[in-house]
C-alpha cells in the first residue's frame, strides 16, 4: 500500500485544502448562528492543518507537524474561550444570532 500511495501528487492536497477552506469561508458568510460560524472556523483551521501535514510529509521534515500540534493547542483554547463568550452572549441576548451583534460601532 505504501508504494501505491506514492502516486498521489502534492497538488491534490492543495486543492482539497483550498476547497475545504472555501467551504469554511462560505459557512462563515452563510450562517447566522454563532456556534456554526465557530465550527466553520474550526473547519478552516483544519484545512490549513491538513496542508501543513501534507507539506511536512512530502518534504520529510517534521516541523510542519509540530506546528499543527501547536495550532491544535491554540484551537482548543480558542474554542473554550469562544464558546464561553457565546454562552454569556446567549445569556444576555437570548440568541446566538450574530445579526443581533451589531453594537460594534460607537
Amino acid at each position, binding site marked *: *500500500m*505504501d508504494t*501505491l*500511495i*506514492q*502516486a*498521489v*501528487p*502534492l*497538488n491534490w492536497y*492543495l*486543492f*482539497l485544502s*483550498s*476547497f*475545504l477552506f*472555501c*467551504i*469554511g469561508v*462560505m459557512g462563515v*458568510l*452563510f*450562517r*447566522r*448562528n454563532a*456556534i*456554526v460560524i465557530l*465550527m*466553520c472556523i*474550526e*473547519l478552516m483551521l*483544519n484545512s490549513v492543518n*491538513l496542508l501543513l*501535514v*501534507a507539506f*511536512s*510529509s512530502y*518534504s*520529510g521534515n*517534521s516541523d510542519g*507537524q*509540530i506546528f*499543527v*500540534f*501547536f495550532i*491544535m*493547542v491554540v*484551537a*482548543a*483554547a*480558542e*474554542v*473554550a*474561550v469562544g*464558546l*464561553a463568550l*457565546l*454562552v454569556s452572549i446567549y445569556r444576555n441576548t437570548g440568541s*446566538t*444570532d450574530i445579526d443581533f451583534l451589531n453594537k460594534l460601532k460607537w
Partner: protein
Amino acid sequence: MDQLLFLSVSALTVISALVVVLSKNPMYSVLSLIFCFFTIAGHYILLHAQFLAITHIIVYAGAIMVLFLFVVMLLNLNKDSDQPKVGKLRVAATISAGMLFVTLLASLKSTRLGEFTLPAPSDIGLVEHIGIRLFTDYLLPFEISSILFLSAMIGAVVLAKKDKN
C-alpha cells in the same frame, strides 16, 4: 488504488464539510463536523502522520466537538432554529466563497508542486520523534502553550460564570 483511496476519503471530507455548512440544524452540523474530522484524521494516516492523527481525534473529536455538543444542547439549539440569511445574502456568500476558491486555485496553478511525491514512510510522524523535538527544539513554545491553556481556562470560567446581579 492509492489515488482511489485518497479520492474516496476526500469525497467524504468534502461532503461532510458541506453538510456542516448547509444543514439547518446545528446538531447535524456538529455531528457531521465530527465525521469530517475523522476523515481528516484518515488523511493524516495516509500521510504517515500517525501521532497527529491520534492527537487530532482526541483533541477535536474528543474534546472540542464534545464542547460544541454540550453548548448546543445547553442552549437548546438542537432545532431548526437557525434561519439562514435571506436569499440575496446567500447568493452573495456563495459567490464570494467561490471567487475565493477560484483566485486561490489560480494562484496555486503556477506552482509545480505536482512533481513532488510522498517519500517512503519514515519515523518523523511517530510519537518518539515528535516528542523528542517537542522537548528539545520546541521546549519553550511547548511550555508557553501550557500558560495559554491556563489563561484560556480561567478566561472561559470567568466569561461563562453567571453574573451575581
